């Protein structure tokens, strides 16, 4: 390491994760040499609170672990507590409604991510355009559940609200609107020369590293690891579908594991989600939506039951696990452990960020789909002179935007690889 290396702490607030993160970078000039991740600032003690409430109350807590992927937390908790309590005959219709909701959320999350990624590169036009597109799916989520975020759709034994036949045309309208816009979305990101410059060979996670760090979701699929809970261990309505994990090679791009490959995966998955929702709407079986209509009876059943189980779902960010234990006679959840997908992916950060430039930190960190929005401030300590300066999120953003402008000026010239 050269003499002029310095430490660059980022954070601590990092709001997208269950455990928000503080980074410490050891820098050599512009290049990141070492990365250390220190989570814990946004710790709300949710598992502790959950063990003081009964399973039906915990549902509302589970969906407030994360506001963006709230459905999948609720889904995983519902599955785990159903298995633990021995509730096995969930109506088919409820399974399909659960699948539709989870896929609607995946669309909203991926489109949101695309906007954030564009913002990190300084393409605010694209941010506004993708978020405008996202409002369509938000409208449908609100139409079905009554709320734009935190939908409260699932509970042990079924779902709370039906998707009745008269609601289906409205959802199909959204699907066809997205299909019309889909190619535009793909072109806006994948064909843009500047987006390519900023993402190709940036933040590379090789297949070997992806397997070693147990990365999940689009982060690992971008590296060519065909890992997807919906395919490997199908749950809900996914068992009836012929799904394949989305890999960048399906769009003719090699599975390099760079930020561009991860973007390709997410765009492919938006299309896949549209197909899944359409299939589920067309093939939705008739019948009840709940195993037991009386909520008190469900609660009594859970109180008497004992057992432990794991619920796994494929969140927009990757595999998510909830572990639940219920003791007979104890009304509350006796043990609850959540392993969210970003917990795996922040370990992959280490592999992706080493060797990156400071200006690329924003987009590489965003490539695993956390929210980098609250990078409070950054202290730059020059190792040689001991000089201290403060970098804000604004400075980071400015560095990133400046790099985009520099590339725009050099557009057309052959890539020197040194940017």
């Amino acid at each position, binding site marked *: 390491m050269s003499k002029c290396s310095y430490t660059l702490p980022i954070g601590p607030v990092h*709001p997208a994760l269950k455990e928000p993160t503080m980074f410490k970078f050891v820098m050599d000039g512009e290049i990141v040499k070492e990365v250390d991740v220190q989570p814990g600032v946004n710790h709300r003690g949710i598992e502790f609170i959950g063990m003081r409430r009964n399973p039906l109350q915990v549902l509302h807590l589970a969906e407030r672990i994360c506001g963006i992927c709230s459905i999948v937390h609720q889904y995983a908790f519902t599955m785990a507590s159903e298995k633990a309590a021995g509730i096995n005959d969930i109506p088919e219709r409820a399974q399909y409604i659960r699948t539709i909701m989870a896929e609607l959320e995946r669309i909203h999350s991926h489109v949101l991510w695309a906007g954030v990624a564009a913002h990190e590169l300084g393409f605010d036009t694209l941010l506004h355009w993708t978020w405008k597109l996202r*409002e369509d799916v938000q409208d449908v989520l609100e139409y079905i559940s009554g709320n734009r975020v935190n939908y409260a759709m699932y509970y042990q034994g079924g779902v709370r609200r039906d998707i009745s036949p008269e609601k289906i045309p409205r959802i199909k309208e959204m699907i066809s609107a997205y299909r019309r816009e889909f190619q535009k979305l793909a072109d806006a990101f994948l064909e843009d020369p500047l987006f390519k410059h900023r993402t190709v060979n940036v933040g590379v996670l090789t297949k070997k590293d992806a397997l070693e760090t147990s990365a999940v979701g689009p982060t690992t699929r971008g590296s060519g690891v065909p890992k997807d809970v919906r395919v490997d261990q199908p749950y809900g309505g996914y068992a009836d579908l012929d799904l394949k994990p989305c890999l960048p090679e399906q769009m003719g791009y090699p599975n390099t594991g760079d930020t561009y490959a991860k973007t390709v995966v997410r765009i492919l998955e938006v299309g896949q989600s549209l197909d899944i929702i359409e299939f589920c709407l067309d093939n939705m079986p008739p019948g009840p939506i709940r195993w037991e209509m009386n909520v008190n009876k469900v609660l009594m059943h859970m109180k008497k039951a004992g057992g432990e189980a794991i619920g796994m779902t494929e969140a927009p960010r990757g595999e998510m696990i909830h572990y639940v234990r219920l003791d007979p006679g104890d009304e509350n959840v006796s043990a609850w452990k959540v392993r969210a997908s970003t917990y795996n992916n922040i370990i992959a950060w280490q592999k992706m960020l080493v060797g990156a430039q400071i200006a690329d930190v924003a987009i590489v960190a965003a490539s695993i789909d956390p929210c980098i929005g609250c990078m409070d401030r950054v202290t730059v300590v020059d190792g040689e002179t001991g000089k201290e300066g403060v970098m804000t*999120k604004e400075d980071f953003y400015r560095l990133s935007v400046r790099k985009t402008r520099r590339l725009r000026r050099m557009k057309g010239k052959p890539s020197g690889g040194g940017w």
Partner: protein
Amino acid sequence: MKLNKNFDRALWAFHVNTGSCNGCDIEIVAALTPRYDVERFGIKLVGSPRHADVLIMAGPVTRAMAPRIKRIYNQTPDPKVVLVVGNCGNTTGVYYESYNILGPIDHFLKQIDPDVKIVHIPGCPPRPEAIIEGAAKAWLVLEELRGEA
């Protein structure tokens, strides 16, 4: 040159996440983007509390964030208004039993400034329309503070 009234109304906001689940945060951004588009009034998010007229705070206050929100509040120039978005920031919401949640946001702000002006926006999360209504109330409060009302 005397700045006109419209300049005052172009609120610059700094967004602080005090331990929120991200639900309110995406609705704040949704309020800024084309469907709701508060940027047409000149309201925008800025990167530093020193540039801000309004602090938008969301989430219950975690142990690690408590000293930080006080620092951020002190860094914001007067006159200022705090917009507390969401049930958690107003009452701690579903997390009320937690060992690591110290209380709602106003509890901490009143410790350092008893006259703090807070606009409460309840909801889990509040709709973007509610956030816009809160911003309109923040204008009124700021006008009052400047002695224009």
